[in-house]
């Protein structure tokens, strides 16, 4: 009923908006110049603004991570609109962005709370699409939510730029044509970690896995087990633990007698904080097994988790997507603008969503349209650098970014509360790259891009 | 013939002997009073009739079928209906509803899903309920929620709820306990009036005024055994009863 009326208004708005942007920027509006992509797609921006949807957890266990993501987004919007010091706009190459919004339209945004639940995340994303007219959805801090939102965006016909999602499935068996991931994944964690672990702990190791009993946990368990077995380690046991178990003692004590000398914690967030804290309390790190020091590995780290686990993380290896202490120009520019705006360094969550927002905007500029199909084509196979992870490729086959991965260690000489992790090695992209038909990523299909209602 | 036959009922609570070899025959149409001092086992006996307690030994036969081991609602469906010592009514519902519900039990049985029927389609039940409310003198308050009734009115309502079921045997557990003299008298009148319907009644009562105005037969229970049984006049003069009541000033 009402939306029919609205659509009439909108059609007229398209022309007006187009005229306005000619006048405002003096550039030929790309809508007219790129006939390959229809101008009539879902939520096509009509006025002088374009709306992005930032869908992050604001309540629940990952609320702090969500808050940091929002900071990253707001910074990105500021920079896109030409505010602030420009951040990575100054370092990104190649770059089509001009600091005047996206395609001359001022960037606006709406926010929502995913509650780290698939249902709530989808409801929130739907609100952004249906009510607020968002042309792109981004965010998420767990793989379940990201996958659920990604498939929603595919069905609805908008672009989804994934936030924090580490499961292989996001760009594996659940990949979608409208979805893109900048963050690294469990396979990359394994591939990056294994050589470092081999160097530090040798080839003769027996690993015991504690794994969060849901899809992300399983893919990480499989990835790490595969990577470590490749360097000669044996996997003694893989034990699944319920999500949110709280007290892990009943899963930790069997480790003592298992003959294993490495404990791999495939946990994230609160589960990881708890299981690590308790494992250390059980004296695992003081133990000697098979004549070697017992060690713990946490394949996926985040600074907030390290903060939660306190000094228990000291000396424990893990991997991360990005860290503020990196010295390359892109990272420095981002840390500088983030630090000056908020007074503390950004987390990897803030970094990945900042990059995602910029990458989306840049793709729009290059495609000359917001049409998801155009944007997707522009992103596919896009090679860029200067965004903190070296030379990066957005692979066309699965919409996954291939870039350097960091192996980090809990800092035992931290000087401030931000200085909890130190970068041990920057693993080059080549080492973590895999074929699109790798068995761990098989089974899915990108399908065709969906521009929404025509 | 006896509508209710109680044979050799024994009931012990732990070591306490509550009922011992109780035998009781209630004739159809009778108003049979069971009297006795506190703790004599009157309520225990009544509880054995309605499935609240199961005797250790003995039998309770109603119309030649056993009442033991069957559920309370089955006993009710068989025609044995009880008025409780503290009124058991539906406090959150209106008086009319309170009386209509038992009528449904009578007409629709122990369970029936009549979820699509409108209440008003059951005018026969409604008319009957209004009639009963008239009988117990509460028709003016038919749409009042019961929790606001006085205790005496609640008792009368409960009596009405039992009457609408057309019981074959009505068990009355101290129907006038805690009532004023005026209320007691009006209850007696009411019970007398329904007595004309030919319902067999067992009455447990302390108030001898009530007992002797109503009962056609009396059993005296003391320390779990029946010590005397007979017509009211016989009981009045019975020395064992006098003794049981310690002088029996009331009698």
């Amino acid at each position, binding site marked *: 009923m009402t939306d029919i009326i609205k659509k009439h208004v909108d059609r007229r708005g398209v022309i007006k908006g187009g005229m306005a942007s000619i006048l405002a920027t003096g550039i030929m509006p790309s809508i007219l110049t790129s006939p390959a992509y229809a101008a009539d797609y879902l939520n096509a921006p009509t006025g002088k603004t374009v709306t992005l949807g930032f869908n992050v957890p604001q*309540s*629940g*266990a*990952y*609320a*702090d991570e969500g*808050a940091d993501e929002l900071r990253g987004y707001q910074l990105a919007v500021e920079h896109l609109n030409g505010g602030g010091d420009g951040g990575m706009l100054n370092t990104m190459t190649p770059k089509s962005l001009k600091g005047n919004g996206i395609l001359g339209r001022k960037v606006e945004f709406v926010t929502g709370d995913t509650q780290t639940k698939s249902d709530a995340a989808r409801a929130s994303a739907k609100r952004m699409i249906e009510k607020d007219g968002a042309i792109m959805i981004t965010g998420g801090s767990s793989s379940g939510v990201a996958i659920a939102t990604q498939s929603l965006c595919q069905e609805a016909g908008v672009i989804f730029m994934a936030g924090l999602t580490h499961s292989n499935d996001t760009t594996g068996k659940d990949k979608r044509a409208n979805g893109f991931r900048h963050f690294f994944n469990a396979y990359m964690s394994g591939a990056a970690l294994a050589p470092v672990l081999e160097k530090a702990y040798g080839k003769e190791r027996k690993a015991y896995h504690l794994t969060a*009993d849901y899809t992300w946990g399983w893919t990480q368990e499989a990835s790490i087990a595969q990577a470590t077995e490749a360097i000669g380690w044996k996997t003694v*046991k893989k*034990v*699944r633990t*319920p999500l*949110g178990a*709280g*007290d892990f*003692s*009943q*899963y930790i*004590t*069997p480790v*003592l*007698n298992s003959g294993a000398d490495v404990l791999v914690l495939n946990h994230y967030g*609160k589960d990881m*904080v*708890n299981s690590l*804290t*308790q494992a250390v*309390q*059980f*004296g695992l790190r*003081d133990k000697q097994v098979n004549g070697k020091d017992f060690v713990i590995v946490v394949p996926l780290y985040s600074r*907030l988790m390290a*903060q*939660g*686990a*306190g*000094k*228990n993380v000291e000396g424990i290896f893990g991997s991360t997507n990005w860290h503020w202490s990196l010295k390359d120009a892109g990272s420095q520019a981002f*840390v*500088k603008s*983030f*630090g*000056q705006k*908020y*007074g*503390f*360094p950004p987390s990897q969550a803030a970094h990945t969503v900042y990059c995602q927002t910029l990458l989306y905007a840049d793709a729009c500029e290059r495609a000359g349209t917001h049409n998801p199909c155009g944007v997707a084509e522009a992103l596919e196979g896009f090679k860029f650098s200067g965004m903190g992870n070296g030379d990066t490729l957005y692979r066309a086959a699965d919409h996954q970014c291939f870039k350097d991965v960091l192996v980090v260690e809990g800092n035992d000489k931290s*000087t*401030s*509360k*931000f*200085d909890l992790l130190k970068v041990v090695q920057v693993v080059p992209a080549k080492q973590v790259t895999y074929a699109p038909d790798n068995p761990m990523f098989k089974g899915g299909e990108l399908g065709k891009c969906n521009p929404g209602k025509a | 013939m006896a509508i209710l036959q109680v044979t050799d009922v024994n009931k012990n609570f732990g070591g306490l002997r509550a009922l011992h070899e109780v035998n009781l025959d209630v004739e159809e149409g009778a108003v049979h009073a069971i009297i006795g001092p506190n703790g004599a086992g009157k309520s225990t006996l009544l509880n054995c009739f309605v499935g609240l307690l199961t005797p250790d030994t003995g039998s309770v036969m109603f119309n030649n079928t056993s009442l033991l081991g069957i559920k309370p609602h089955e006993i009710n469906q068989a025609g044995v209906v009880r008025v409780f010592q503290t009124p058991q009514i539906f406090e959150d519902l209106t008086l009319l509803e309170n009386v209509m519900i038992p009528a449904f039990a009578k007409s629709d049985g122990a369970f029936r899903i009549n979820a699509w029927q409108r209440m008003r389609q059951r005018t026969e039940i409604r008319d009957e309920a209004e009639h009963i409310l008239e009988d117990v003198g509460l028709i003016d308050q038919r749409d009042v929620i019961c929790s606001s009734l006085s205790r005496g009115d609640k008792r009368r309502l409960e009596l009405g709820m039992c009457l609408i079921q057309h019981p074959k045997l009505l068990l009355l557990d101290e129907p006038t306990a805690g009532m004023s003299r005026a209320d007691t008298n009006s209850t007696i009148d009411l019970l007398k009036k329904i007595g004309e319907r030919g319902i067999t009644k067992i009455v447990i009562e302390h108030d001898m005024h009530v007992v002797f105005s109503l009962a056609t037969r009396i059993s005296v229970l003391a320390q779990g055994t029946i010590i005397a049984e007979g017509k009211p006049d016989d009981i009045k003069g019975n020395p064992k009863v006098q003794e049981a009541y310690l002088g029996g000033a009331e009698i």
Partner: protein
Amino acid sequence: MDAILLQVLNGLDKGGAYALIALGLTLIFGTLGIVNFAHGALFMIGAFCAVSFNKLLTFSIKVKDESITFFDAYKEVPYLEVWWGDTGKAIIDYSVPLSILIAIPVMLLVGIIMERGLIRHFYKRTHADQILVTFGLAIVLQEIIKHFFGANPIPQSAPEIVAGSAAIGTWLGLSDNLVYPWWRLIYLGFSLSVIAAVFAFLQLTTFGMVVRAGMHDRETVGLLGINIERRFTIVFGLAAVVSGLAGVMYTPILPPDYHIGMEFLVLSFVVVVVGGMGSLGGAVSAGFLLGILQSFASMNEIKSLIPGIDQIIIYLVAVVILLVRPRGLMGRKGVME
């Protein structure tokens, strides 16, 4: 053998925690007849007593790290260390056990304010109303804590001297692998002594006698002309202290965040109900029973037999017990039926 002994210890330790959390809840249930969905929030406030106390102790001199220019990175040295050197350090080290001292008055106050300000107006209301109002309160308390402390867990460490594990196996001449964290042993001892103290208080004092009588038959006690209202307030305060202390002592095991109370809420209800409504002994035995069963169900041998059993064991046991024993282990007839 070791594995079984360790799981028994785990079970006892869990059981102690469950019992302690359930104890306060069943006290409130039994005496006040209140379905308190804010009980988890009390546990959470207790935990944050420890956090705040630690923050207070580690109030620091901030020295700007000049090497970082983009944002304010500080080297932090707590004032206590500056003033008192190693003594100060030691005090900070003991912040968790020391925070019990402030948690007791704080929790008592919280409990009394809650009871006086809110709960007492709900004694006569339906359970549904009680659930809604206490649930609302729990959310409000959580959000307030989240506002000040964030959503991320905040680690609290046990004192250095008990940070490691006790070599139980070596003492007993068994395997070296039989070790157990000191702090968990302390927690077990602590929960047992708190439970004992609550029982002693209820059994040996006249106040306790009245409360027990109240749990048995609230109306009669009211009729005896005893000022039951004031006692209710104190009982609520006591329950708040017990759950608060459980929270304080649990912080080194589980770094607290604002949501920690909700995670224990369902569990504590299950424990109380399995134990039987209004029965303190029931709650304690149910706590230990569920703790031990949960530990054993998580053993690899059993998990491989019945996959996923460790995820549902608590609920499964609850169902079985409630079907076999209609009012839980030690419940009485007519309480919240």
